[in-house]
């Protein structure tokens, strides 16, 4: 399996230092000093420290680490957005550090493209023009790049949005544009720098699934950066954990889960259970229908119809939660059968933003209405539906 031809990208002893006294700092690390000592003594930041790995063609290689572990710097070295301080990076056996200006442009235009955490989209261009950007700087004719961009936009499921401006798009859609832009160049390698971190958890799992199916279809090599171990294990053929600029373990997800190299890795892996790490604020939604008690039954009915829901949350003057009003009861209030005060169901489940999703599981399963999320003043902040609780655990 691991024969030489299959390796598309090889990183050898890569280091990246930021600051002025790089040479003495380098000596210090070689002699075994750690990152903090170097920073304190010389004011040099050691972002990446002697990192080596190989990426196989057609596989997803995941670099995972907390912020400041150097993972983003590594990925920026792979297309020379950052120049390595030492070490080498071989693309198909050729050192990218030896590239002259023209070769580097060619490498970036044809071989490698990148997806960014906060999307890096150009807001003065519409969706189509963003996706076509790589082709445009490459010199592809307008008609041709338009066709190619449309094709890719369709592939990522944004058909019909070609002429929309970026500001009209949701976060998930923006990152689809980012991915489409990267794919439009038909690169060999896709560098993805925490592409889904800025998205909310439900959209994130959608996007992960879609990345996997895209990758299957197009068979691209992916270098994926994340701080989320679930994401890493879900996507990665090979996962490398980084800490303080160094790789501390590199293996397949199965092996890593079975044999964590040390306690740090073990702790990382133990956070896999999503329900444990997601709290209510990550999955709550804005209530689609909210009425004020002084609005009256007619208004409540209209609002429920407009939002096509059969019940609504009733709040008081200061947004404090009073209860739920169903559409049937609202009708009865209108005909005068009962008063609005009596019609409101006051006995409902509430929770707060910081409750862990896993703690909510048992109550959510039997809840008749979505659970209301309130703050300490009993103000309605959002709602959590049964579906949201369950799907966050998938």
């Amino acid at each position, binding site marked *: 399996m691991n024969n030489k031809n299959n390796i598309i990208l090889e990183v050898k002893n890569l280091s990246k230092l930021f600051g002025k006294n790089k040479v003495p700092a380098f000596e210090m690390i070689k002699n075994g000093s750690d990152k903090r000592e170097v920073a304190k003594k010389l004011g040099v930041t050691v972002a990446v420290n002697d990192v080596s790995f190989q990426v196989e063609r057609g596989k997803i290689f995941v670099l995972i680490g907390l912020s400041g572990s150097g993972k983003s710097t590594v990925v*920026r070295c792979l*297309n020379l*957005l950052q120049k390595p301080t030492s070490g080498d990076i071989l693309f198909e056996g050729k050192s990218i550090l030896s590239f002259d200006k023209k070769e580097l*442009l*060619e*490498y*970036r*235009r*044809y071989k*490698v*493209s*990148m997806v*960014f*955490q*906060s*999307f*890096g*989209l*150009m*807001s*003065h*261009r519409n969706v189509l023009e963003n996706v076509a*950007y*790589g082709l*445009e*700087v*490459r010199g592809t004719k307008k008609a041709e790049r338009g066709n190619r961009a449309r094709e890719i936009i369709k592939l990522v499921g944004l058909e019909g949005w070609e002429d929309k*401006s*970026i*500001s009209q798009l949701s976060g998930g859609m923006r990152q689809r544009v980012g991915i489409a*832009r990267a794919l439009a*160049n038909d690169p060999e390698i896709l*560098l993805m720098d925490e592409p889904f971190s800025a998205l909310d958890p439900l959209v994130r799992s959608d996007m992960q699934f879609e990345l996997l199916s895209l990758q299957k279809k197009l068979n691209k090599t992916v270098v994926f950066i994340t701080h989320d171990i679930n994401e890493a294990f879900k996507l990665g053929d090979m996962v490398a954990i980084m800490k303080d600029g160094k790789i501390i373990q590199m293996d397949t997800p199965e092996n890593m889960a079975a044999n964590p190299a040390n306690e740090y890795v073990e702790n990382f892996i133990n956070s896999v259970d999503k329900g444990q790490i997601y709290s209510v604020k990550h999955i709550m939604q804005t209530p689609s229908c909210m009425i004020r008690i002084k609005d009256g039954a007619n208004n409540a009915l209209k609002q429920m119809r407009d939002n096509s829901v059969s019940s609504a949350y009733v709040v008081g003057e200061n947004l404090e939660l009073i209860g739920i009003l169903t559409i049937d009861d609202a009708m009865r209030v209108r005909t005068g059968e009962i008063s609005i005060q009596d019609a409101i169901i006051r006995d409902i489940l509430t929770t707060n933003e910081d409750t862990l999703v896993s703690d909510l599981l048992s109550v959510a399963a039997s809840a008749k209405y979505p659970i209301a999320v309130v703050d300490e003043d009993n103000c309605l902040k959002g709602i959590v539906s049964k579906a949201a609780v369950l799907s966050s655990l998938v």
Partner: protein
Amino acid sequence: MPDWLIAFPSSIKLNISDPIDRFIDYLITEWDAFFNSITNGLRVFLNSIGYVIEMIPWWLLIAIVFVLTWRMSKKIGKAILYSLLIFSIGAMGLWELMNTTLSIIIASVIISIIIGFPTGVLVSSSDRLDSIVRPILDTMQTMPSFVYLIPAAMLLGLGNVPAVLATTIYAVPPLIRLTSHGIRQVDREVIEAATAFGSTKWQSLIKVKIPQAMPTIMTGVNQTIMMAISMVVTGSMIGVTGLGQEVLISINRLQAGRGFTAGIAIVIMAIVIDRLTQGIIKKGEAFIDE
């Protein structure tokens, strides 16, 4: 107690006025031909702008203001108000003077953009250049605007032509500053994206940085225009014609009514031009706003 502790010691003398005088004298004698050609060039430029503006019939100008305001704000009331305001300048008998003032403003702003925009782009590219240019811009902007009139008049003579030069010097700093600022504050990831997809430096400047910075650059243009308008009155001291001269004459003759009439006309011009350029900026921001 010795005197020098109370009054500033008269024995300490710093004389920068003589060297400046000598420098200006030197420019006048040695660079005469150069400044003559600048004067002639500016005169041709100013006259052709004036000529074009003269050719626009009064009703067409009002119609242009109406259509632009309407398209910018989508409010018919505003469009009518601004058109009426411009109409009232004519009704006050100041139409011709407004045309003169307008052409001086337009000429100064065009020259400011030609100088300021590329300078701003250049300054944005280098921190060292920025630290050199910044104090110069501060000086240019805080120096009382009258001061520019003296060398301008000495080198280029009296009238509207030196005023264009003095106005440019006074009005160009905000444009340089905001062009540079706008380009520097473009989102880092957006610039990285441009580079990562294989843009040359030029491509990422033209296709990404400048368009992303456009709302800020337009704010700079707007400020430049406003400063140019404010210079109109000051310029009248070296014989600039137009609305500013009206104000100066009224001061000399103590005619409050006449002074206010011209003043109001200047205010109207400033408001209408400001709102129109602000409208353009807002349109641009709607795009950039994430």
